[in-house]
């Protein structure tokens, strides 16, 4: 048996600092919103001429009065991603096409064009925030129905930790937040909850079984009993996610990365945060027996 409980205090400090650092990052550095939420235009180009590179493209486009243009390589040497802010000109894409063809010859394939107006991006951001909030509230209601309040608090804190720290990491690394990241965050919420609930189920079962074991050791027994399941599920989920990350193409990379972070944080938080809360709140057999009597 691994003595997870010996490290409760250390990890309590770690979790709190991670959340604080993430919050600071989110407040001061902010998130790198993609065009879905900020509005603007995105063009994915493939060139057939290997001489064309990021700086020659950037030089060319910067003469076009597009405002803040970003040009990046996208996946391999011949693919580029161009992004710029919302433009009044309705024919801007056509003009870029003409301009590039004039400067570099007819060597481009416009693989993807996305243009999100300011009104739509504001709506997408709002509905993204609503979706995550509704998910958190529904999880809260679900766990509140299923468990005693001490457990609910632990699960919700773990959940907030996972979402905040994942977003914090995205802020730190400057990774782009787009619609698929919202999907990833919601899936993380589901996954983290799932992991926590499995351990809590066992804690509650053990509370009924052993009246003489303190919650400090009882959580440790429960974690150990469910540990192989926790690890196996995390591993298979990570195997699936890693294969999306490495082979699923450039478009799914951010999504799979967010999920990979989320699964790791989710596994960590269900062991450390969720259980630490139970210990701090001195949950005992009485906690669940009281509830049993009520129902």
């Amino acid at each position: 048996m691994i003595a997870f409980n010996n490290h409760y205090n250390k990890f309590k400090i770690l979790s709190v600092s991670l959340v604080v650092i993430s919050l600071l990052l989110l407040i001061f550095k902010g998130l790198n919103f993609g065009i879905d939420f900020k509005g603007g235009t995105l063009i994915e180009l493939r060139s057939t001429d290997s001489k064309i590179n990021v700086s020659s493209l950037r030089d060319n486009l910067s003469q076009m009065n597009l405002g803040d243009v970003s040009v990046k390589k996208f996946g391999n040497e011949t693919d580029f991603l161009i992004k710029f802010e919302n433009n009044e000109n309705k024919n801007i894409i056509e003009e870029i096409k003409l301009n590039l063809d004039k400067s570099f010859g007819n060597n481009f394939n416009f693989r993807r064009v996305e243009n999100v107006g300011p009104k739509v991006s504001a709506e997408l951001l709002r509905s993204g925030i609503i979706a995550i909030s509704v998910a958190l509230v529904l999880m809260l209601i679900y766990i509140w129905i299923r468990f005693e309040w001490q457990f609910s608090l632990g699960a919700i804190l773990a959940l907030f930790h996972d979402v905040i720290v994942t977003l914090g990491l995205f802020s730190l690394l400057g990774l782009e937040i787009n619609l698929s990241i919202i999907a990833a965050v919601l899936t993380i919420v589901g996954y983290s909850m799932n992991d926590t609930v499995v351990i809590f189920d066992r804690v509650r079962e053990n509370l009924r079984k052993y009246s003489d074991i303190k919650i400090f050791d009882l959580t440790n027994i429960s974690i150990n009993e469910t540990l192989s399941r926790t690890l196996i599920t995390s591993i298979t989920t990570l195997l699936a996610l890693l294969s999306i990350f490495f082979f699923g193409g450039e478009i799914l990379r951010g999504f799979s990365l967010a999920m990979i972070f989320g699964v790791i944080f989710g596994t960590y938080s269900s062991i450390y945060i969720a259980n630490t809360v139970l210990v701090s709140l001195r949950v005992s057999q009485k906690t669940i027996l009281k509830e049993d009597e009520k129902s």
Partner: protein
Amino acid sequence: MLNFSKLRIFFVTLISLLFILISSSNFFKFSNELLNKKINLGLDLQGGSYLLLEIDNSPVIEQKLQNLTITIKNYFKEKNIRINNIKLLDQKLSFDVEDQFKQVIIDVFTDEESDLNPYYPRFKSHQLEISEENDIFNIEYSKQGLVELKTSSQDQALEIVRRRIDEIGTNEPNILKRGNDRILVELPGLDDPMRIKSLLGKTANLTFRFVTTNTEDSFGSEKLKYEDGSEEAIVSKRIILSGDNLLDAQPRMNSETNETVVSFTLDRVGAKRFGKATSTGIGKQLAIVLDGKIISAPVIRDTIASGSGQISGGFTFQSATDLALLLRSGALPAPLNIIEERTVGPDLGQDSINAGMIALAIGFLLVILFIFFKYRVFGLITNIALIINLFLLVGILTIFEATLTLPGIAGIILTVGMAVDANVLIFERIKEELKDEKNNLIAFDSGYTKSRTAILDANITTLIAAIILFFMGSGPIKGFSLTLGIGIFTTLFSVYFIARLLTVIYVIKNKEKVGLI
């Protein structure tokens, strides 16, 4: 938990085989109607254009209120009430009257039988709202009035957009209403939406009006620019003909001038008016105005009574074709703005399919190998259940002809990764039970029973996330939530019917064996 009746075994086998058959219809062709269904590919996988259009209703509101000024003046004139200082500002009509008539005005506008202000009994609201401030009346659209106006202009716009897109002949366009002032257009397979965008961006309001020299035309006049921006001309506001009078329009080559023109045919009313105007107006310039710009203003040389004519204006064949198309399909009630556009080229779509399939194959293989090495015989059972799970998932998507997107494929891969969780929970529980219980059958039975709540909890939490995504998400994200959500049900089925059935068969055969799992 270990009992399986013969009937149940039969049904489980039947369902599994059926879904394998249905799933395979995506890869083979069946002559059977029922089996000839396929999963639709989203625009991000097959390539195509997604356009969200917003109707700009403000010109319509302005126009309607403008018309209302005349109606109001005439209506009260008959009642010998003078309307003073009537003006239109910020979509609000304001005027004043002598004090003694104030009540009459209010009564007319708030009467449920009002001639001027239609009443919607269903919504208990008038079309217009009247308010009085500093002896000045303000009239504006009520909330319900605006909704009615927007809905009707959306209906009209939808019809025109559909006609224009049908004229171009793209395959299986999807044109839908969104809210009450938006139209969603999905055009599969279209990789360059430039032409459609320019066609949808034009209102195509065509009028024929005389060019005047005297600015005191009784209908009023306005200064308009030519299409090429070169000159301006003063044009009467009196409309001789409008696009509504057109029966047909086609691009043509004028054999005399060797110029591309748009030839048109007028309806009976139009032909009559055109004939009259051309006979009285010989020597005058007739301006052809499209969306506030003059295309050309030819001098009338002869009476045209045939009800057909030509528009010239330095067209290329393409621009003449487009103008003819716009004129045939009619004018939009209000301008449309493209507020969101997402276009994926067909080769990127194919690349995404390939990458998604490779990721699925590798992810699947890794999970299967891992589980097999971890649980051996039971790993094999889990894997068989996992494969059937995949067929069930693909089969359900096929039956409903659901749309598969790239994030949807990610959802399938994720389902593969998380689907084993339930079996892992069960097997780990059985292992624990076997520590105290030597009877294999009892240990397996209680392993299944005791792990049930945890499995349900785990799946419900994921389902909550998937449902929210489905209702809140757009486009590709919906695809992800769909596969993730359906995946939960197919996983539960494959775990509790297929994997359990195989486990039961194996355990009953080996009930005396020690260290079974």
